[in-house]
């Protein structure tokens, strides 16, 4: 038995990880989420804005991070739409507009069919330049965004009338998978104009530890990975009575597989250490 674990073929580990994720998905294992303070801060930042406020949503992620970030993107857009906020959607990542299209299709067009493009929401699309884009639009949108993704001139879009820069937004929401993302928004937008620009964000698990230092002054709230998404989702579901719509439970649903996968990881680390110490005791390894 010891020999088997000592020379454990990694394919057994792969199989165990596959089952640890697949079984909870199949049996729909999920748990109740207790939102932490950070999730509450994100929720309150959107909830406490007066109805019809201007919100800039930057979709800075791609399909690789969709598993972690799409649930929070869905909840963000639902929350803003439910509050009737005007949504200005943009992206610093080349495939960001496609991720935004997906959310617009699933949330706005399905659940808020009365919302009109150009009046309630607009997709400004992607611009190259990463933080260079932020540096320009914090003082002037039209220098870069002369049109939206459909080619409609900025001044012909009703909800863009009177909007000059990011400073005219009541809140910036960033959904980030890396560079360029939340860190750049904090450095080039919020830090440069701390009295004008407020921001909350949702990010991947690997980014979250790097963003904690910006809370609470530069970043009012932060949703870290699928756990953060599930907590925020729980708040939105409770407030807007979305218990029956599975689309708004994606984050919570993914916590089941995450739990079993984490337990497997802990088991593997302990098993690896037990083997290590037995080997050490027998003098097999130094």
């Amino acid at each position, binding site marked *: 038995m010891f020999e088997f674990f000592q020379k*454990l073929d990694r394919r057994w580990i792969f199989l165990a990880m596959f089952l640890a994720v697949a079984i909870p998905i199949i049996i729909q294992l999920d748990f109740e989420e207790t939102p932490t303070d950070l999730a509450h801060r994100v929720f309150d930042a959107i909830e406490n804005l007066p109805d019809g406020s201007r919100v800039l949503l930057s979709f800075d992620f791609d399909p690789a991070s969709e598993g972690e970030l799409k649930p929070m993107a869905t909840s963000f857009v639902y929350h803003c739409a439910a509050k009737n906020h005007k949504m200005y959607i943009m992206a610093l990542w080349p495939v960001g507009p496609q991720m935004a299209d997906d959310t617009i299709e699933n949330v706005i067009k399905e659940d808020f069919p009365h919302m009109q493009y150009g009046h309630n929401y607009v997709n400004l699309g992607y611009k*190259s330049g990463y933080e260079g884009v932020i540096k320009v639009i914090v003082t002037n949108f039209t220098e870069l965004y002369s049109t939206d993704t459909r080619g409609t001139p900025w001044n012909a879009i009703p909800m863009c009338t009177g909007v000059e820069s990011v400073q005219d937004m009541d809140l910036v929401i960033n959904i980030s998978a890396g560079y360029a993302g939340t860190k750049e928004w904090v450095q080039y937008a919020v830090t440069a104009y701390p009295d004008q620009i407020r921001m909350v964000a949702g990010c991947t698990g690997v980014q979250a530890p790097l963003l904690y230092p910006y809370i609470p002054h530069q970043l009012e709230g932060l949703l870290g990975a699928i756990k953060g998404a599930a907590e925020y989702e729980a708040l939105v579901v409770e407030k807007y009575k979305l218990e029956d719509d599975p689309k708004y439970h994606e984050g919570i649903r993914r916590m089941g597989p995450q739990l079993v996968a984490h337990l497997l990881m802990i088991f593997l680390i302990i098993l690896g250490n037990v083997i290590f110490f037995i080997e050490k005791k027998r003098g097999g390894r130094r």
Partner: protein
Amino acid sequence: MKRTIPLFLTAIGGFVLIIAYYIPHTQGWGEVAAIWFDILAAIAFLLGGGNLMKIHLKKISDHKAGWAYSVITIIAFLATLTAGLGKVFSPPSMQYPDMAWSGSYREIGSAFWWLFEYAFKPLTATMFSMLAFYVASAAFRAFRAKNFEAILLLGTAFIILLGRTAAANWVTGWLPESWAGLKLENVTVTIMQVFNTAGNRAIMIGIALGVAATSLKVLLGVDRSYLGGGKG
């Protein structure tokens, strides 16, 4: 000359951005410099595409190991480029309902949308999700309590792994409210907001000072390594 002009442009661009940050009247200069940067970033896509073609065509012509993958790369690149630029099969737009392929290249039903939805999306998601398997295997083989620092790291990893799931409630949910600070989910938050934040702030300040010093050396022309090793 080949080195003097880039040095001059770098110095001008850098100092304009610094001045624009501190002197409100010169803010417009900074905007112009930032727009130039965005234009250059867009041009970099063309250079990137050209470079990709050059490298892979050379690999194919030399019949280097794995040249078949280069063929696939070039076919995928050209197919996506054609589908996007040509707006192939995109539905008619609302402004021009009688014109075929007049809609956006991203519209549902277009060739580009199909490629994104059924090729790019599943491929990138698969690549990323494979990390779970490799991380599990690496944790089993490499995460050893060899010394005190490693034990601290292991302990923290266990707390975070459990604290970010419902297991936290099973393990410490029974603790009374007066001991709430010891509940795993709260210990996780404390580790992230206190220990992690303190460490990260120190690292960030260190990096910022290093970046400022290096930037100054670049702007003043002391550090010219970014220009490459060619003779000027």
